[in-house]
């Protein structure tokens, strides 16, 4: 049975029509049957400019991930693997964030203010942001 209802698929497909450069979705997890794998496969089918690859636990470190923070969803655009990632299922509000991230990354779109961009350009130390959310 499909995870995404038909009306949601249609909405996502409409948003995906704005994809510019090709984007690869990468799911890093333990393998086997999973709802996340099915979700990625269903999303992949909604745009020719999307592709989907599944990576195993052994590849986690290659992507800078801890084994404890799997499953993880990464997006790879024209400039390599994005440093914005999803730890666990992108459910509820986060599903919309994932879809928008795919479109923004494909368009190289940055919605930050000029002041924030200037600050980020001056950064010399690493910053790790973790935003905790729940599906509801």
């Amino acid at each position, binding site marked *: 049975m499909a995870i995404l209802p038909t009306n949601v698929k249609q909405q996502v497909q409409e948003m995906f029509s704005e994809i510019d450069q090709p984007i690869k979705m990468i799911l890093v997890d333990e393998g086997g049957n999973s709802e996340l794998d099915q979700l990625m496969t269903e999303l992949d089918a909604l745009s020719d400019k999307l592709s989907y690859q599944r990576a195993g636990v052994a590849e986690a470190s290659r992507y*800078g991930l801890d084994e*404890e*923070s799997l499953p993880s969803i990464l997006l790879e655009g024209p400039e390599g693997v*994005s*440093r*914005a*990632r*999803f*730890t*666990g*299922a*992108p*459910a509820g509000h*986060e599903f919309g*964030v994932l879809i928008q991230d795919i479109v*923004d*990354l494909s368009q190289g779109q*940055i919605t*930050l*203010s000029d*002041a*924030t*961009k200037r*600050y*980020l*350009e*001056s*950064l*010399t*130390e*690493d*910053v*790790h*942001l*973790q*935003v*905790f*959310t*729940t*599906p509801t």
Partner: protein
Amino acid sequence: MYSPHVVAEMVDANEFWDLTRKHNVHGVPKTVINEGRHYLEGAVPEDHLVKAIQAVVGS
């Protein structure tokens, strides 16, 4: 996306109890900066987040 120094991770609080407990996540969204050097509760405006990052790594 913008800075090579920044990693932004969206964490499903229900799925990662160890992390949720470690950072005392009682309400969402909650933003953790550099493994707990600073916390932000709620959906904050962009300049608020920048100030919080500045408090941790400087300007």
